């Protein structure tokens, strides 16, 4: 049994490795990572457009926003593309004719994509951290010279943000895989995936209404309850500003709770993908 698991993990790791190598060579990945890096680096130059925020908050929002936006697009397109490339080029045919289970295939695809997304997130967050740290040093010197209170910056908060965003992109990748496993075309998977991401980002509205408004009718309450169970809440990972600039506003255990929730979503969505893919004709 132990040997079987070891063999299975080995096959999954090899599929992940090839997926990673294929993804990292894509021009789309290179283009988006360069574009996002340019956005992050240029955020300091755009700070004159800011009104009434702490300067670091503007820089952070600019950088976090870029990572969020381009990361979402990258995940959506890359996951669907890598999945359908296997089906349409019929490499899946060769692969699944080997003693590789469909679960291993999906797990390998997910791991490979997630690893590339990790490179994307951690590279950009590292650049953003450097930009923010550099500007923070200047602002601290200026504040000390003027006798003002210097702004706060938590580098570990930036790292925690990177981890949460990585999980968020993992949830999106698993969601796109679940959709792709039953979708017949790449375009369909992209369109439905984009709508699912949109719904996930807006889920908090239903969640807030459910938590706050106590005078809802039974039908409406049941409807809200149902959609808050079915649609993943992607907004729960967007606490970058607070983690980096105002750690005191982050409730104890919030990062852990969001991480756990992200992991559970990934597992559940991958199980769904596996069930959808189980009887798919290759």
């Amino acid at each position, binding site marked *: 049994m132990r040997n079987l698991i070891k063999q299975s993990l080995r096959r999954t790791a090899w599929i992940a490795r090839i997926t990673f190598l294929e993804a990292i060579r894509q021009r789309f990945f290179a283009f988006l990572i360069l574009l996002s890096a340019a956005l992050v680096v240029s955020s300091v130059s755009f700070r004159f457009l800011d009104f009434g925020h702490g300067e670091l908050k503007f820089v952070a*929002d600019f950088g976090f926003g870029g990572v969020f936006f381009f990361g979402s697009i990258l995940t959506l397109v890359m996951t669907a593309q890598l999945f359908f490339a296997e089906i349409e080029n019929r490499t899946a045919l060769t692969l699944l004719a080997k003693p590789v289970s469909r679960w291993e295939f999906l797990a390998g695809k997910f791991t490979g994509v997630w690893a590339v997304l990790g490179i994307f997130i951690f590279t950009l967050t590292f650049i953003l951290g450097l930009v923010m740290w550099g500007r923070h040093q200047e602002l601290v010197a200026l504040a000390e010279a003027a006798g003002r209170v210097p702004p706060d910056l938590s580098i570990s908060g930036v790292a925690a943000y990177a981890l949460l965003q990585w999980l968020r992109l993992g949830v999106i990748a698993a969601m796109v895989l679940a959709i792709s496993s039953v979708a017949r075309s790449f375009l369909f998977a992209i369109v439905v995936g984009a709508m699912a991401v949109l719904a996930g980002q807006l889920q908090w509205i239903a969640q807030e209404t459910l938590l706050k408004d106590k005078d809802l009718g039974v039908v409406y309450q049941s409807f809200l309850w149902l959609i808050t*169970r079915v649609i993943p809440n992607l907004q729960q990972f967007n606490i970058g500003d607070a983690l980096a600039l105002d750690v005191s506003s982050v409730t104890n255990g919030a990062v852990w709770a969001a991480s*756990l929730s992200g992991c559970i979503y990934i597992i559940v969505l991958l199980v769904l993908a596996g069930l959808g893919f189980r009887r798919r004709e290759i």
Partner: protein
Amino acid sequence: MVRWLTVLLVASAIFVAGCFAENSWRLVRTSIPEMGRKQIEPTLGQGVLLGILGGLRTVIADGTWLRSYVAWEKRDRAACEGLMRTACALDPRARYFWENTGYVMGYDMAHWEIRRRGGYAKVSQEIQDGLFKSYARKGLEIFEDGAKHTGGNPGILISAGQMAEIKLKDNLLAASYYKRATESANAPWFSYFLCARSLWEGGQKKESYAWYRKQWLEKLKGVGDSSPDDLEHLRYMEAELSLPVLQRIPRQTWEK
């Protein structure tokens, strides 16, 4: 049978994931500035959707604010109000947006409306006063919202007090705002004086002195350069109220 069992298991797994997400959201939501959904509705589709989705909220709020200036220059009340409210809703922790939206609503828009109706010569003074008060109240609502979202920012409360004083001519209402400002941890020194002056001018002279004296003895006496100025104001009040010497604040060693 197996099929139904699978459906049941998947549904249970999704349910569990949803429960964990709800628990996580309860902890996380305090770190995310709450967005005023109703305020955003009119400007949805004008580029703010991304902000609602969670990214670039500050940047989009800034962009929206810049666009509101164009509407302000054209004196387009509806567009200006919509965009300014959107900026506030997108980034509700920024004092700047609340304060300036309140100012524009309370001070500028009544003038725009009078001009729209034909100008100062054409609109009767009574209607003009009505418009000034009506827009000032709208401005105060914005300040109230802003204070709520910024944890009772004293700057916003002082702005509200000024609006109540200047536009509504309601000194007691102004005093209540100033008083709330003094209750903030980082209340500016002049907020105490503003509160006392408004109470005084609102006719509550004894209450004003009693409150100001208490604040001075408990909070202001030992701190800041303003302490002598506040005492000077208190001495003026004591003289106006003709208080006996024993009821007055004892003379300070440093007092001129």
